């Protein structure tokens, strides 16, 4: 428990540092937000007025201070483009991306676990070769390409799935899942390939350890040894990789969201960057950073569950 608290406290300076970075970096992007918002036709007078309205005429540190004050009270400000509260925009978009991420992980696990274990157990046989071949293909195929392929094949040609038309889960679960199948597969395949290779090699490693041999010598059956003894130890590096993958997913999902026209968090961020919507970019990046930090925390905590040595090590401090 103390460990969890300690980890949460250390998140604060990280987030503060990130907030400064986010704020500072976006102001380094060339291009005047007022000009971008008003477009090519705006008169200089209108642009000047817009700058004042947006507070862009003030020095950056003062702008940061105002922003931070609001953020600390939970107010992420209003979108510079359409005046919508940023927290509202994020709240609308985040569930879509989280669903996509969770779906991706589920697909990845469903593929990676059975095939990773089988590949390790039947090492060197045709099953192993097939699994390795498939994972190499999965790794080499970029998700956006697979996405377009799936889109053309399964929606344009076969009409099995809708090509767009995300429906929130709470409105219609069936339609929601129907619309999510292809995006989730498009991103999940790659993650599955990474995880599968990791699991295979890590499991092979463990299977050659003395204690596994001992267990076998004691007369335990093959699958029992693998699930009870080997897998658990093999999971540590897999969890590390998985954690990093989840953190990385947030960025990778952007393209999938574009291809399947999903109103997600990634596309919000991309659009905000292009329209110089400072407040939205700042708010969204901060939330994304928070998510990554939280995912890391969860991964660390899961270590403790899977491998008691980690937990004890921390508690004995």
């Amino acid at each position: 428990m103390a460990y969890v608290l300690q980890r949460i406290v250390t998140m604060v300076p990280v987030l503060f540092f990130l907030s400064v970075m986010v704020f500072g970096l976006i102001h380094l992007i060339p291009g005047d937000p007022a000009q971008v918002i008003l477009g090519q036709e705006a008169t200089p007078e209108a642009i000047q007025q817009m700058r004042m309205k947006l507070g862009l005429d003030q020095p950056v540190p003062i702008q940061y201070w105002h922003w931070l004050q609001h953020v600390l009270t939970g107010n992420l400000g209003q979108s510079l483009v359409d005046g919508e509260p940023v927290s509202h925009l994020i709240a609308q978009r985040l569930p879509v991306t989280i669903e996509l991420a969770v779906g991706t992980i589920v697909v990845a696990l469903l593929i990676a676990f059975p095939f990773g274990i089988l590949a390790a157990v039947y090492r060197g046989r045709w099953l192993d070769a097939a699994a390795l071949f498939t994972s190499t293909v999965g790794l080499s195929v970029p998700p956006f390409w697979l996405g377009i392929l799936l889109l053309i094949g399964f929606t344009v040609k076969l009409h099995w799935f809708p090509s767009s038309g995300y429906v929130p889960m709470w409105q219609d679960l069936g339609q929601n899942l129907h619309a999510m199948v292809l995006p989730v597969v498009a991103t999940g395949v790659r993650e599955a390939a990474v995880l599968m290779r990791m699991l295979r090699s890590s499991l092979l490693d463990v299977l050659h350890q003395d204690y596994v041999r001992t267990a076998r010598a004691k007369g335990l059956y093959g699958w029992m040894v693998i699930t009870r003894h080997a897998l658990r130890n093999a999971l540590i590096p897999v969890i590390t990789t998985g954690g990093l993958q989840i953190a990385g997913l947030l960025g990778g999902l952007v393209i999938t969201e574009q291809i399947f026209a999903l109103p997600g968090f990634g596309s919000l961020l991309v659009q905000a960057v292009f329209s110089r919507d400072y407040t939205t970019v700042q708010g969204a990046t901060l939330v994304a950073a928070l998510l990554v930090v939280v995912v890391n925390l969860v991964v660390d905590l899961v270590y403790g569950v899977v491998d008691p040595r980690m937990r004890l090590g921390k508690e004995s401090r």
Partner: protein
Amino acid sequence: MKRKALVTAMALLMGSGALTACGGGGGGSQNQTGNQAAAGAPSAASSDTLTVGLSADPPKLDPKLSTALVDRQVMINIYDTLFTIGPNNEIEPGLVEKYEVSQDGKTYTFHLRHGVTFQDGTPFNAAAVKFNIQRDQEKDSLQRSYLTPIVGIDTPDDYTVILHLNKPYSPLLAIFTDRPGMMVSPTAVQKEGADFVNHPVGSGPYAFKERVKGDHVTLVKNPNYWQSGQPHFNTVTYKIFTDQNVEVANLQSGQVQIIDTMPAQQVATLSQNPNFTVINQPGFGFQGLYLNVKQAPFDNKYLREAVDLGIDRKALVDTVFKGAASPGYTPFSQASSAYNQAQDTPPQPDPAKIKDLLAKGGKPNGFTFELQTAATPVTVQAAQVIQGMLSQYGIQVQIKQIEFGTLLDNATKHNFQASQLGWSGRLDPDQNIYSWFHTDGSQNDEQYSNPQVDQLLDEARAQLDPQERAKTYGRVMDIIHDEAPYVFLYHQNNLIAYNKHLTGFEYRADGLLRLATVSAQ
């Protein structure tokens, strides 16, 4: 205990993997028929809802605050305009049934249509028009600069509006076919205040219902629309696609029935498909290169001319746009009343003449310049083709790809040698040339200044006869062609596509999807 749980979890994971694989297939085939019906033959549902694909999210649905092109796609169906555009790009009556202009061009009298109400029940009358014009003249209005010549508004009766101008201003009626002509409900503005942008109310065929930013905008039928028998659908849903190829895929799969644009590469494929109608027609816009006349090397007129003459527009358009644009040499496309075929036909590159120009400009062996361009595939490809064409004459082009916001910023600050930036175009010729070449023009990023051009542009503004005006613009173009502060390259086409089962769509050169007349067979 824990180990058992882990084993069970593993078994479940593997098992569910198999199950999902089967379930996915079954669910898919069940849906096959449903979706095919939507894509092919019209179903009962398709006459109820029209789904439109948009290539960007419309930021603001209030004409006073809007500057984005895509806003107009939605607004044109929520709001009626005072005047509209006819099939041959002539100005037609809208909410103004008849009008008169005084001899001196300074007084416009509008006679309004009777029996029109806004979607919230507010009657449309002279007071509403006055309210709208004054609202667009407010300080925070982005339409203000279009309406500066209007100095007084009289409303002698409920259906007459008299506008007093401080000088003759011929683009006025064309301006009223666009945002300043879109009439919003005064009651709704007073009720919603700043939130009107999220609750727009007009008198158009469809009323705003809801929007989810970045995903969709929904409109519903206006049951009291003044044009009897219109509109035809109960609901119109705009879906946002930030990738145009995805937008096309959605048209092909039947998720949307009409799309506002598409990549040029898709035109041929889609045109061959018997299920779709493709419109590939010139819009009002133009594209080309700004040459910064206040900076070397383009402070030298001969070098500007050499670049202008060295580009084969036909080849450029064929290579990059595959028939979805036409070569151009003026700001006026075929759709414009100031179009002049002879002047808009680009000259063929003439190596001897170019060599001569380079020698006159003091660079007989050529020179190097930097071309700034947006980082989109099409603009970059165009820049590369130009690079290849000019290198034959020793003119080396260094392409610098930059993000669009920065490109605009650099242009405004005159921080460029050459910049690839065009204009989406407007109905009235004045709006396609004045601010680009007048010394005080807001788009004059090339910093061109010529008193004679200024005088002619001002003169054209005051001329009411389109033919006279076209002649004046012809004189301007003679000078511009000679001085080449801007290299006109091509006119982009409007690319619209829709499912064959839709009927009644009427194309206009502004490229807007007017949906009142559209119905499903």
